[in-house]
């Protein structure tokens, strides 16, 4: 669940963040049983818009109040060229956890025995 702190409009806030402020809330109290303090409201997640994962990414702006509920607001962002390159590097199918070295020439490193 995602929450909004009304006094500061801080969003998103999660259960663990609220427990740091209210340590008396136990970890067993979670989900529908989480005792939400008065300064917080639950933000209903609306259906995300379609976007192109290869060149765009989603964020959320400040929620809006619609009637008695607060709803998420989606923003579709275009990636920069640097972000596209970073994502392409991250998204390379990783078949190995250790990456092989590139062929680097160089002097023999200092040796400490």
């Amino acid at each position, binding site marked *: *669940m*995602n929450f909004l702190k009304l006094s500061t409009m*801080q*969003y*998103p*806030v*999660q*259960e*663990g*963040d609220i*427990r*740091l402020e209210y340590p008396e809330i136990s*970890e067993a109290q*979670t*989900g529908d049983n*989480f005792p939400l303090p008065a300064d917080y409201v639950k933000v209903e*997640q609306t259906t*995300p818009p379609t*976007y192109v*994962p*290869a060149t765009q*990414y*989603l*964020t*959320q702006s400040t929620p809006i109040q619609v009637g008695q509920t607060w709803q*998420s607001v989606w923003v579709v*962002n275009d*990636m920069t060229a640097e*972000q596209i390159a*970073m*994502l392409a*590097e*991250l*998204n390379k*199918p*990783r*078949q*190995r*956890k*250790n*990456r*092989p*070295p*590139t*062929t*680097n*020439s*160089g*002097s*023999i*490193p*200092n*040796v*400490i*025995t």
Partner: protein
Amino acid sequence: MSLGFGFGLPHHVAILGGGGPPPATVYFLSLTTSTSSGSISSVPAPIVDGSGNILVFGYDTFLGGEVIKLTSSGAFSTSKYFSPSGSALAAPNGSGGYYVLIDTSLGCCCCGYYPYPSILNLDSSFNILSETRTNSSGQTSVASIPLIDSSGNILAVVYDQTNGYSGGGILFKINSALNSANYLSYNAGNAILRTVKDAAITTTNQLVYTGSYLVAGVCCIYSAYATVTSVSAATPTATPTWQVWDSSGTVGDFDALALDSSNNVYVGMFYYNTVNNNTLVKISSAGAVQWQYRYVNMTHISDIATDSSGNVYCVAVSITGALVIIKVNSSGVLQYSRTLTPPTGVINGYQRIAISGSIMYITASWANKLLVFKVPTDGSLTQSISVGGFSFTYAAGSVTSAATTIALASTTTPPALASTGVPLTTTPIAAYVTTATTAVTTL
């Protein structure tokens, strides 16, 4: 309390030693720089010993695999890397590199390749005690951190161009005496275990591994169904106990994996350029899918760890290049997100996480340096951190979560693995060149 890493433990919980004092509650951000011209990236998750020292396993692009020890306050202690004597890692085939497992039964163990997969036994000062390596053409690198089963056998993931599919990782098992080994792969018709991404061993000696397998008759690397498989670690070629696979037809892998103390399985999905590229899935020890969540404002999950209360921690990077940490409880409810933002550039390499008590240790790479971050698991201590003139910011993140429902199918009669023997040799290669790295730390 002495515990073996990888056996009978949730994945990425690493506590060694014989009941020494708990790790010092000093939180830090540490940067380690290679003395070579290479850059260091972390590979397996860090390990904490009984004295609170942190063992980090860096992969230096020039030097190869490197074991680095930091003190409990994040200061550099010692390091060694392993490379054939007389040459830098600029061998004509460009191969090389080791990374490390620590286990109380096997002792300090290093698993890597040059040019064939091999296992080094090390003492506490990282001196080489013995080496066992394969001696068969076609093998290349050991691809994943090895695991120790209840009989002392070593299981690892090997990247092999001959026995795998176009270089896909496959399971590699070597016995406790280090004198017999087998590759494990299956070929039911045209269905080949294409790649294994991560693995762990449960408290009941079940081997659970993630990866994907090819659709019969299809050769494209992206026509592969993500799978999670559970099989007896003692007899990994037996029919697996269960398998969960993506029946939606979306190509990709199940990637990072972690277990909790009840042997529930948490896996991260890895789908190239899809909206589900960071879905976290919980699967019970019996192979039943419990829940699925995906996350906004982070890329795909790089690593997963659990704590003794069943909470789940994932690390990733954001699209802006910050390190992202999320905590999820056993019911799938997001507890918090945090970001560690570097002063310039982006966090890169592999992000890894390990949990020790109420502390999390995270490794990543930044600006050709190995980054080690020690913070409480409750998400507190958000602050600006200065390290050697560089200013990082640790703050509340902006990740939101939503339940998702990728079509996942379960089967209790998946194909069994075949087995291919692997010739071994205990003839060591030339003596290793070692060196130390410099480090910059702060409290």
